[in-house]
């Protein structure tokens, strides 16, 4: 995929490995918090970690960090919409 500027960015192996390790660490954290007694916040925690992980994948593996502003904005709008939808349901899930 080419960006708005036409440049094709190649991510180095070192960086890819770092992202991979970060993803593994976050996965471990997801498992860890299921063992804690957090009630409804457990879901919030799991979702936060999932967001971080998908953020890393989108930024590096899907090259969004190196894309033009338009594409990043479009993705941002979609993600914020989704976050608002999920966030509002927490007024129900957390206080039921």
């Amino acid at each position, binding site marked *: 995929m080419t960006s708005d500027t036409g440049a094709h960015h190649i991510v180095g192996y070192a960086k890819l490995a770092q992202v991979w390790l970060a993803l593994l660490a976050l996965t471990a954290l997801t498992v860890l918090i299921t063992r804690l007694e957090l009630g409804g916040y457990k879901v919030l925690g799991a979702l936060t970690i999932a967001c971080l992980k998908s953020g890393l994948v989108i930024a590096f593996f899907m090259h969004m960090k190196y894309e033009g502003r338009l594409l990043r904005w479009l993705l941002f*709008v*979609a993600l914020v*919409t989704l976050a*608002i*939808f999920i966030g*509002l*349901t927490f*007024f*129900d*899930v*957390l*206080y*039921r």
Partner: protein
Amino acid sequence: MTTVQPTQPSFWNDTGKTGLAAWIFSTDHKRIGLLYFYSTFGFFLVGVLLGLLLRIELMAPGRTIMGPQTYNALFTVHGVVMIFLFIIPGFQGSFGNLVMPIQIGARDVAFPRLNLFSWWLYIIGAVIIITSLFTGGGPPDTGWTFYVPFSSRTGTNVSLAVFGVFVVGFSSILTGLNFITTIHRLRAEGMTWGRLPLFVWSLYATAWVQVLATPILAITLVLVMAERLLGTGLFDPGRGGDPVMYQHLFWIYSHPAVYIMILPAMGVISDVIPVFSRKPIFGYKMIAFSSIAIAAFGSLVWGHHMFTSGMSDTAILVFSFLTFIVAIPSAIKVFNWVSTLYKGSISLDAPMLFALSFILLFSIGGLSGLILGAAATDVHVHDTHFVVGHFHYVIFGGAGFAFFAAMHYWLPKFYGRRYAEKPAIVAWALMFVGFNVMYFTMQVLGMKGMPRRYYDYLPEFATLNLVATIGSWILVAGLIVMLVNLFRGLFRGEPFVGNPWGGATLEWTTATPPPTENFEEEPVVTHGPYDFRGTGIP
């Protein structure tokens, strides 16, 4: 559709292509608009017939013409057909396609083939939905909302029906995508955002809702299918699932969907009222802004459908508050339309009569919506005929009447012939009276406690139910007069040439009917959409 005979070259004949294939494989936005118009409006008539049968069943207590199972199936199919096959795709598909590209001075939409594909997806989805009525366990009986746990357990053909709705949803997403791109990229020279007709603004706001909210319905319906076919237990509390979560997911789309239905209708009204008042629209910027505000805030209020579903009190408070916020941009529109009328030179032609009744009926619907949006009062009228009355005031009295306004205002432009004015006014009067007799009575019935979706009721509701049923007959009588007059006019009526309404938007500057590429030469826009000084009509 092929019997129209305008003599001058137009999109009907200037490509030399005739026959069915020239229509169902055409990428011309006007032909696709007419395809959408006839298919969605055809489904509207089917929905009307089903609604009429429902009202006949409710004419007297006990069994009148059908049993409970048939009644359950009929109100489900009435809802599915009217919502998913008529009013959601109706405005965008027919009048959006017919008028929007011309209004912005474009030759076509940004992706003409995708546009045709959207219509095909719509037709395929519709065929699947119709198939679901006659196969498997018979027509779905869940109501158009497909609520679990009933929808995951009923033996009727829910899986196929929701799959049909799923396919229709993709048609809606693609149309939204197409319109956003078209409005951003294909505006003619001089067509700034501040000169866009308000109908285009409303389509733009709607398109964003279509693109952002429809995928959530799609995934929700897939989950219902998974629940039925694979027994995933996502909504089954016995297996750790949550049935209220289904309602969240369903209404996250289906409440914004109400704005997919009503926003383009508001756009039509914003275009019709200034033309027939001979006055620029009052508060152009605020009407445009309120379309965006309604689309944005309207997407955050879905919880108000669930006040009695066991949702948390905190959520009820939040969603009730957000619901009241949506009343603000809606009221901005109503006040601006009324201010436009003030001291205008008003001519009461059929489109204007439909537009004026839109303001009244939508206001009644909107205000009764506030009774439902306030949690304390909602508890009393939830799931009664009050809700049915409210919804029909907004969507039929609002969006439906705006659709009729658009039919009288724009279809003559594309046929080059017009309807007769007097019968149109008679039809409007019959529909207006019949509508109010029917739905106002339903609201009173709801206040008295008559539940919705029951085929039988207590004897004390008998008189008002009879009144409502008689109202439905008056309404349908008006509808028949309107249809006969309008379509006889379009095919055999007086010629409609030039700019008889005196509109100042771009569609009135090109030939009637428009040529395939819409304009002889690319237009350059030098004034706003409601600047009537150059239209030659005082």
